Each structure stands twice: as structure tokens, then as C-alpha cells.
């Protein structure tokens, strides 16, 4: 039986073999990526009326998303907070990952895995826990008062609270990306840099930073893109004027029942995220990334 199958396999030409071998991944992409995306695209061109989808091809939803000031505000707010969150995450993750790699010794792996421990409790609990920290009589204010300082009045239910929450949620991803990059970095290169005239800081910017740039960019993108669509964190922490784009999009599918408009918002988000990824990828010159095999030996 298997012999017969094998004989038939041998008779296939290269093109047919390629089709057969890539079939699983193609099926997966079709079922979970192309079909949902197409259906979103189609729905976005229909309209909804009193919780009913009506097939009526039009571009009104896009006109609404692109022209209505509130959606534009939400999008800008989302872009800004995603940018702040990603930059702060990278800035925090670098020293964390760097010191763990250099001085973590045999506890390296344990320390990095420790960053993932909060994940075990789920995102809602983690965000609600932050309410306990940032709230009017939360841990932060209690601590400040203990030190005889003025409590911060307006921290909870602000955009700042959302940003703090998002940083808290995404820091482990960025740290892991940079950690893995540093793990493959040959620190002996710093010896070479120093012997050839660079001080510690110069050696970092000349050698360590560019050779871990790809890892840094990946960490940045891993934060930036999901932050754009984030809806749970702003809902719990953001307050009345803290609505983000992802949150507004979510409510089209629940509270207001305007699925077609929500679908259009989803398509716009997809395009914005795609453009962002494209822009980010332009920041990487793979030849200068230090990856071996980037160029061919001839």
C-alpha cells in the first residue's frame, strides 16, 4: 500500500509535489485568513439597519470611518498611544534583557521566564489588578501618602492609565524579543570594538545596537500592531475620554450592532497595521543585520 503510494509520488513532477507539500499551509491560510478577511471586506460594503445586515453595496461605511471626527480622533489616539507604549517598552526592555544576559549567569532563563508568570492569570485579571494599583486609594496613592506626599488625583480612568496598562501587558513580549536577539549576539565583538578605540558607550552604539536592531524592531512591531487594536485595557482603565480605536470598533459588533461599519473599521485597521509593518520593515537592512547567510559566498 505504502509502496504503491510511494511509486505514485515518484511519478509526480516538481510542481505537483510543491502543491501537495504546501497544501496544509495553504488550506490553513485560506480557512483562517483569506476567507475571514474577504467576508469582513464584503460585509464592510453592506449596511446594517436595526440589527439587520442588508445587502446593499455602498461605500458609506468607509466614508463614515474616514470623515467622522470621532473615529479619526480614536485612530490618532490609538496610533499615539501605540507609539508611546512601544517606545517605552523598547526602552525598558533593553536594560532588562541586557542585564539578564550579561549578569544573569545560570539564572538567565529563569529570570526571563519569570516575566511571563503574570500571563498565567489572564489579561482581564491583570488589567483589573492595575486598577488596584492606580485607583484613587490604590497601592500607588497609599504609598505616596505613607511617604507624606500628595496622592495623585486623576490617574485612574485616564489615557495615561491605559498607556501604563499597555506597557505592563506588552513589556514581556518586547523583552523576550530583545533577549533572544542578545542571546545570539557575540559579546566578544565588544572586545574588538574596545581594542580598536571605542569606549563602552561607543562600542554599544557601534556594535551591540546595530547587531540587535532586528530583534528590537520585532519587539517594537509585536507591541505596536496589537496595541492599535487593543480594546480591553482602555475599557477598564481608560475612562470616558480614553476610547481607543479598537474599543470603538468592538462596540460596533456588540452595543450598537452596526456590523457593517465595524467591518469597515476593521479593514481600515488592517490597512493601517499593514502600512506600519511595511514602514518598519524599511528600517531593516538585512545585509547589515549580522545574520549569516544574508549574502551569498561566491
Amino acid at each position, binding site marked *: 500500500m505504502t509502496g504503491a503510494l510511494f511509486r505514485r509520488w515518484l511519478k509526480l513532477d516538481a510542481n505537483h509535489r510543491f502543491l501537495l507539500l504546501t497544501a496544509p499551509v495553504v488550506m490553513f491560510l485560506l480557512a483562517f485568513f483569506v476567507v475571514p478577511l474577504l467576508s469582513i471586506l464584503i460585509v464592510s460594503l453592506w449596511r446594517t439597519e436595526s440589527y439587520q445586515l442588508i445587502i446593499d453595496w455602498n461605500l458609506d461605511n468607509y466614508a463614515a470611518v474616514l470623515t467622522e471626527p470621532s473615529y479619526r480622533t480614536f485612530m490618532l489616539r490609538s496610533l499615539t498611544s501605540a507609539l508611546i507604549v512601544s517606545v517605552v517598552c523598547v526602552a525598558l526592555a533593553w536594560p532588562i534583557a541586557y542585564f539578564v544576559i550579561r549578569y544573569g549567569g545560570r539564572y538567565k532563563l529563569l529570570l526571563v521566564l519569570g516575566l511571563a508568570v503574570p500571563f498565567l492569570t489572564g489579561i482581564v485579571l491583570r488589567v483589573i489588578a492595575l486598577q488596584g494599583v492606580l485607583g484613587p486609594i490604590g497601592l500607588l496613592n497609599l504609598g505616596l501618602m505613607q511617604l507624606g506626599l500628595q496622592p495623585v488625583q486623576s490617574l485612574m480612568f485616564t489615557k495615561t492609565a491605559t498607556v501604563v496598562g499597555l506597557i505592563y501587558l506588552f513589556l514581556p513580549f518586547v523583552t523576550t524579543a530583545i533577549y533572544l536577539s542578545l542571546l545570539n549576539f*557575540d559579546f*566578544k*565583538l565588544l*572586545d*574588538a*570594538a*574596545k*581594542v*580598536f*578605540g*571605542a*569606549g563602552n558607550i*561607543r562600542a554599544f552604539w*557601534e*556594535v551591540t545596537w*546595530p*547587531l540587535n536592531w532586528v530583534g528590537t524592531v520585532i519587539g517594537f512591531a509585536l507591541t505596536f500592531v496589537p496595541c492599535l487594536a487593543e480594546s480591553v485595557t482602555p475599557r477598564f482603565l481608560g475612562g470616558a475620554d480614553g476610547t481607543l480605536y479598537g474599543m470603538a470598533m468592538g462596540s460596533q459588533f456588540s452595543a450598537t450592532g452596526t456590523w457593517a461599519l465595524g467591518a469597515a473599521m476593521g479593514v481600515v485597521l488592517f490597512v493601517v497595521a499593514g502600512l506600519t509593518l511595511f514602514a518598519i520593515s524599511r528600517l531593516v537592512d538585512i*545585509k*547589515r*543585520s*549580522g545574520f*549569516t*547567510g*544574508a*549574502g*551569498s*559566498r*561566491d
Partner: protein
Amino acid sequence: MYLELTNLKKTFGSFTAVANVNLSIDKTEFVSLLGPSGSGKSTLLRLIAGLEQPTEGRIIVDGKDVTRLPPYQRGIAMVFQDFLLFPHMTVRENLAFPLRMLKMPAAEQAERIDWVSRILSLTELQQRYPNQLSGGQQQRVALGRGLVSRPKVLLLDEPLANLDRELRRDMEIEIRRYQIELGIPFIYVTHNQEEALSMSDRIAVVNKGGIEDFADKSTIYSQPKTSFIAQFVGRSNMFAGPVVSIPTGARAIAWQDLLIPLHATGKLADHTIASAYIKIEDTLIERDDGTPAPDKIRGRLRDVIFRGQYAEYLVRMPNGAEIVASGIDSATRVSPGDNVLISWDPQKLDLFPGEVRQ
């Protein structure tokens, strides 16, 4: 002297990597630090480069005490064993790196890069990245990066260890040539005695963090100062055992059940332990035609290892021990299984008191 190390010491916790090293090196010298792995020779090099701080002692380069200076203020360059080229920079950018750090004007930088590219034949490779180069090409770039800033001293840490044999021999000659042209000291760390012997003016034999001897390479080879050097440099037969008087009035070492006559016993008293070494090329072999030869050792030729220009003869003694002799194959005319006689000039025997050190 141009480069002076005074009582240099480096400890890592309770481990002493470098112990009280004193070395004076002249401006035009090629010096090798020769020693087995773990002997501390690389640590010594890193101390000179400033990549490690000495626990005690001083380092003086060209009249200036650099002991407490960071590496980038010492004007010393280094060629690393695994090259350590910057993978994100082209060959040209790698060569420009030391010059950029010196804030050299661009025109002068270009001049230097052209010069070093010319002498190392790197001109064609300037736009390539290190991962597009062969091992030998990477080696030349690493050497170029070391020479381009015209350092006060060039340190080389086993730079040829990753190259194949053919390439290594060519590079040995080249490296020596650059040292003479530039007129700066090269300090070359290696565990390969052939490299050390072919390139150096002087050799410092390093063992257990200390210098066993620092001398002219021919002295190191033919007049080993310690039993460690006798074992480590060149290839020798070793005879170790108690010193005894023999009927002729001279002394000998009782080795296995043979007596190895000694030429000059010095202060060695009877019954003390001593070891004697004879280089394999000074060990002579001839066919045993049955005539009495009281001062020669009888054995049977077990095998001949052909090495090209010469051959090695593995001779088994009646007691089971083995002696190696080497010679030009065509001149010897013995074949495995033959009974042979082994002899040497007793004056060429190097004698050391005490237990055998490994």
C-alpha cells in the same frame, strides 16, 4: 625597552592565571608566547591589550605606563583567534573602524585603507560583508584591521588556528614580513611550536601562568632551560629515573631496565630522580648487524611513519618501551621487523633534576 611587563599578576578568584610575569620586548621584535591551552598566555595578551586589569604589576609601552588605561587609549591593536570582524560592516568599513575611532580625517583614512588593502590584497573585497568571505580572506581583513592604524604594538591571539595548513604556512611568512616592514613589535600567542619557531625572534614559553624561559628561538629549541620546555618544544624521547653510578666512573639514569649514560651530571647526586631528553632528530637508528655495540640500545623496528621529507621510526625495546627516531628515509634502509640499534651523542642529552612535570 619598548614594551615592559613588570611583576604582572592576574588572579580570578582563587585561580592564578598569570603569576609574576616579567618581559621586556624590543621595538623591532617578533615575540611568541608559546604554551599549552590554559597556560595563561591568552590572559597575558588580554592584560597587555587592556581587556583585563592586572591584579598587580605594571605595563609600560613606549615609555608610558598604560597599566590603568582603558584599551582604547593604549594604541595597541589585536588580531583575534575567531577574527571578530564586525558582521554588519563591509570589509572597507571594518578597516575604517579603528581610524574612525581615532577621528582621522577622511582623506587620510582612505589613504590608510588603500595602503593596507594593497599589502593584504583586499582591494577587490572592500564592498563585501564578512560572511561573504572565506576563512583566509577573513583572516587578512582581521590582520588589516590590526595594522591599519599603525599601532604601537600588534597582539595576535592564535590568528592562524582556524586556517588550513597550506594557508597557515603562507600566512606565517606574510605576517613576519609585515612585522619587519612596520618595525613594531608583534606579540604572537600560539600553542603551535612550528608557528612560534618559524616566525619569532624570541619565544617566551608560558606554563601555569608563568614564563618558563624567554630566549632566542634557537636557544629555546636546542638548549631547553626546563624539563617542561624540553617536553613541549620539539619532539623528544624522555628517560626518567634514579641517577646511578656505572662502572666506567660516569653516571647514568636507570630507565626501565636500561642504563642511559649521561655526559655531564652536574650537581646530580646518586639516587636522586632526574629526567633526560633527546630530540627525535638527534636519535640515530641503524641496522643491527650483530657486531658488539655496548653504548647502543638494541630494539626492533615496529613501524615507519613516512612524513615526506623525513620518516619517523618507532622502535620497541626488549622491555616494551618505545623510542622514536627520525631521519631521512632513503638514507636509513631499515624496514619494520628489523633489529636495529639506537644511539645518540650524549652531549645532546638535556638533563633535568627532579620529578617529571607535566
